[in-house]
């Protein structure tokens, strides 16, 4: 359990344009253990998404390094803010996009995709176009598209932020349960503190730009094994929420 899957060492990153340099990340160092669900919160625009892109290898850090356990190398799943299902493909064709690109489309993959559709309650919508699905269903289809790749590490970049509040609660609960059940290591970026507390094992708080790690708060709720929705009723929930709220609002006060 305590084997690190990912280790970030002194990551720094800046954006450049002709007007000058914008420092986004300074000396970010942390570890994620196998099976852990880590949430990262921070003021908006602090560089959370940048950090995730660096972990995924889409951006190169200016200094510092990202160390991945061998088993997880090349097996990172990434879920974006929007579902980005391709409208000209059916749901089935959409969820098989990853294997299609990697030329790993086998019988087993199709069987896995079929099973995931079944598990997430979307098998009836297999041949439908994305526009025929509700927002929550689309986000679940996007999760299947990520899970079909059998990732060892799952990166979630505010995957619920495009949904309305009701859907958001139920989809985040659903997806939280799915990720817990599969035992996959996950990093969730969010600005919703309740979401972070109810889903994760540990919350990293980032400061405002240039982001550094301000605090790392382990979450141990007495109701942990029940659903993420029920977790919001845990007795410790309010205390942790207040603690996080204080950490974040300190950051805004500086402005």
């Amino acid at each position, binding site marked *: 359990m305590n084997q690190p899957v990912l280790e970030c060492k002194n990551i720094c990153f800046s954006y450049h344009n002709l007007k000058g340099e914008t420092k986004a990340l300074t000396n970010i160092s942390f570890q994620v253990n196998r099976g852990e669900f880590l949430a990262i919160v921070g003021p908006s625009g602090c560089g959370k998404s940048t950090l995730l892109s660096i972990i*995924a290898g*889409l951006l190169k850090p200016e200094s510092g390094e990202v160390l991945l356990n061998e088993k997880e190398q*090349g097996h*990172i*799943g*990434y879920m*974006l*803010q*929007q579902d*980005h299902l*391709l*409208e*000209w493909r059916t749901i089935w064709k959409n969820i098989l*996009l*990853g294997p*299609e*690109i*990697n030329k790993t489309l086998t019988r087993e993959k199709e069987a896995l995709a079929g099973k995931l559709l079944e598990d997430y309650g979307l098998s009836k919508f297999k041949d439908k176009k994305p526009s025929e699905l509700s927002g929550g269903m689309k986000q679940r289809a996007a999760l299947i*598209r990520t899970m079909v*790749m059998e990732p060892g590490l799952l990166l979630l970049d505010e995957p619920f932020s495009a949904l309305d509040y009701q859907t958001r609660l139920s989809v985040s609960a659903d997806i939280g349960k799915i990720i817990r059940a599969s035992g996959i290591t996950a990093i969730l970026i969010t600005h919703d503190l309740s979401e972070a507390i109810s889903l994760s094992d540990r919350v990293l708080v980032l400061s405002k730009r240039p982001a550094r790690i301000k605090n790392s708060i382990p979450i141990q709720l007495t109701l942990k094994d029940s659903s993420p929705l029920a977790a919001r009723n845990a007795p410790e929930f309010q205390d942790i929420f207040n603690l996080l709220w204080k950490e974040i609002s300190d950051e805004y006060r500086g402005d």
Partner: protein
Amino acid sequence: MNRKSTNSTLKGEALTAQQLYIKKHHKHHHFVTILRLLVLVLFLAIWEFSGRLGLIDTFFFSSPCMVVTFFIEMLRDGSFFTHTGITLLETLISFLLITIISILSATLLWHSKTLSEIIEPFLVVLNSLPKSALAPLFIVWLGTGINTIIVAGISVAIFGSVINLYTGFKSVDSEKLKLIQTLGGNRFDAFLKVVLPSSIPTILSNMKVNIGLALVGVIIGEFLAARRGLGYLIIYGSQVFQLNMVITSIIILCVIAMGLYQCIQWTEHYYKKRA
């Protein structure tokens, strides 16, 4: 009992209201169609009778009856088929080449940002140039023949087409490109899976413009460098004061332009239905 009868009348009324609406819609539709035909018939009638009554000189203005007679003559001696056929062939070849070349060039520009930055001002200048000015050059370079005419057809549409397609390719949501990256795909995958399929509506609407422009270019080419084709007939007819020939050719051109446009329209319709 009483209540039931009220219900049925209500339902009856609702149906009639819908029927009335549909009836009104059809009536309006028929009205427009009839008026359109009337405008056409009226125009032809005025044209014919002002010729017969001596209000206009049919030597310069021809007349519907003379056009029909000339058309039948063209059908009989087969010249209709040679001239229309060659114009149609040249237009289709130009159109096909425009489509292929512009998709390939736009792909190349999308692939390399530096290349597109270098090429862009040249494209803009060439696109705003009146392309008919180039036709005499093509004659010098390529002689008089089908090649010159096809190149003239291509030159009218190609630059605008490349610019339009490139703009279309560029406007694809960058987050969708990121998605392909997160799934392990490279830029080529992104092009095949996202850029090209999402640009099909742009490509089709671009084709609709191009087919018309190709015809314009081909006619310009035929004016200057042909011995066959509708453009040649128009120029030749005007030089020998055979206005029947000119007007008949223009009418055939109208029909061709409409037909070609319709073909693309149908393709587009078929694509939308399937998608």
